[in-house]
């Protein structure tokens, strides 16, 4: 059953151009030049209940505008959004009670006091009964292992500790959908892992997550579904597996050569990258030739000391999709 339905979503707005020199400043003081921005052009998708959906796209692609509309913070210019039967912007107050949001770069905790006090404030705002609040808090605090952290002033916490508290803050009221915007930005590996585990656990308990990020590891480890937005349009929408095979069945082969590389084709395949004179990478399309066939061909034509065969890395796939659009 789909929990989010988006049909022909459009968002455009007008801003004003600003000049720089003295002449411009005088001119624009009186008359400003209008610029129309079409942030989201025509996007439709549905998201199933209980899944983790990654929304990807380069900077300025229209991702965060889409998220803001899904959260109810922005009205769409045209199109329809239906989340759990609500129209987010119209039914905002009722709607936001059932969702949560974590913005990696916009803290919702109060800077000078311990997170526990911010939590208590949220309890009042979301009207959470005491017993449920206690239970929920205990559960999440244990999951994150932050019993002590929540009693220290927020300003002395490390970024990782703070992000964990942001998650607790956003999920105390047991939201059915949680929007995450760059939740792991700037975190170290351990904190990232911890947060990903938390998201997976909450997802197992039934929470739907919508995740925007530039960290592809987040996507690879968490997302079931991936939607890619570029220039305000949806350019990809399918499962993570199909994203991986979207460019065909390809492998990256890295060779360490016995002789310096001189620019020839190797085993009939173009070299895509040369790290140094002896180390080069090739990309082969398995739909065109089998791996055995290729290796036979290769070992006949070149002598190499080492070889590794890998999947096409995620960033390469994403880069190509971004560039294609």
């Amino acid at each position, binding site marked *: 059953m789909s929990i989010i339905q988006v049909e022909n979503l459009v*968002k455009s*707005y*007008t801003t004003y151009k600003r000049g720089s020199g003295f002449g411009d400043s005088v001119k624009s003081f009186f008359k400003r030049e209008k610029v129309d921005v079409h942030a989201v052009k025509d996007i439709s998708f549905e998201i199933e209940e209980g899944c983790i959906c990654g929304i990807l796209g380069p900077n300025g692609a229209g991702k965060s505008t889409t998220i*803001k509309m899904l*959260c*109810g*913070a*922005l*009205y*769409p*210019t045209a199109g329809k959004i239906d989340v759990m039967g609500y129209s987010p*912007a119209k039914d*905002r*107050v*009722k709607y*936001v*009670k059932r*969702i949560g*949001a974590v*913005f990696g770069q*916009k803290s*919702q905790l*109060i800077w*000078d*006091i311990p997170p526990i*006090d*911010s939590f*208590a*404030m949220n309890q*009042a*705002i*979301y*009207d959470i009964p005491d017993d449920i609040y206690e239970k929920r808090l205990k559960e999440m605090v244990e999951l994150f292992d932050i019993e002590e952290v929540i009693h220290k*002033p927020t300003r002395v916490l490390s970024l990782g500790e703070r992000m964990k508290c942001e998650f607790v803050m956003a999920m105390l009221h047991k939201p059915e959908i949680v929007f995450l915007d760059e939740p792991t930005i700037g975190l170290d590996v351990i904190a990232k892992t911890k947060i990903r585990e938390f998201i997976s656990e909450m997802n197992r308990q039934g929470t739907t997550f919508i995740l925007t990020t530039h960290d592809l590891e987040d996507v690879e480890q968490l997302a079931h579904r991936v939607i890619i937005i570029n220039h305000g349009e949806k350019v990809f929408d399918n499962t993570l597996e199909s994203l991986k095979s979207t460019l065909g069945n390809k492998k990256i082969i890295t060779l360490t050569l016995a002789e310096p590389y001189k620019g020839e084709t190797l085993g009939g395949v173009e070299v895509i990258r040369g790290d140094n004179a002896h180390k080069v990478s090739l990309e082969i399309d398995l739909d065109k030739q089998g791996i055995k066939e290729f290796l036979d061909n290769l070992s006949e034509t070149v002598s190499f000391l080492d070889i590794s065969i890998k999947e096409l890395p995620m960033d390469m796939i994403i880069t190509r999709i971004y560039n294609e659009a």
Partner: protein
Amino acid sequence: MKHLKLYRICLRTAFSQALAYRADFVMGSLITLLSNILFPLVTVLIYANGATFPGWNMWEVLLVQSVYSMSTGLASMVLSSIVWVTMDHIRGGSFETVLLKPISPLFFIMATNCDVQSISLFAGGVVMAVISACHTGVAGIGAIGSFLLLFVAGFMVLCGMDLIMAAISFKWVGNSRIPEIFDSISNFGKYPLSIFPQAVRVFAVMVIPVAMIGFFPASALLGRLDPKAYLSIIPCALFMCFGIWLYNKMILLYEGVGG
């Protein structure tokens, strides 16, 4: 009921927040207090040089100005954060964190950002008002009653101003000087209204009723209030309503309803 409980929790939070920087808090309060004492200095100097505001003695003028301090002190404690917080959110592009709360954005910002430090401004105003009133005398219990009534009306004017300023900051992004505009206009409420020409008086009573911030309530205490002043409670209430309407309108615009 829910709002009241929430406001109490938020106040407690605000206090613990202020106490997190004790030294700063004390220092800040001291400075506010000092500037409070120094603001009527001009009046004192004028009288010390043998001049007067015609028809008013020094303590009467000081009473007007201390009531003004009380009003603005109270307003900056509970209201002025609306301006700064809105401004910061708009500039930082984080206003949606406010919209994500299942509660009126206006109430949320007001409740979660009480400026405890301004209590010293209010307290300073009270002390000065008491001292001045000791010299001028108070015209009976009824005078205190009508003072309170008019004081509340003055507070509504300040409320309206703060809301209009915050509303402006949606459009005039990042302009931290917006409050200066209203500070300058409020100046007309710091002095006996009689020194201004007719046009200014009409403005200060009917359009943006700044006379209600200091002058009218103090006049009530002194027993020299023109009964017509009660009528200008109406524009005060209207002014506040306008502020609320404008602020909410701006939120709608921010969400992109019309634009």
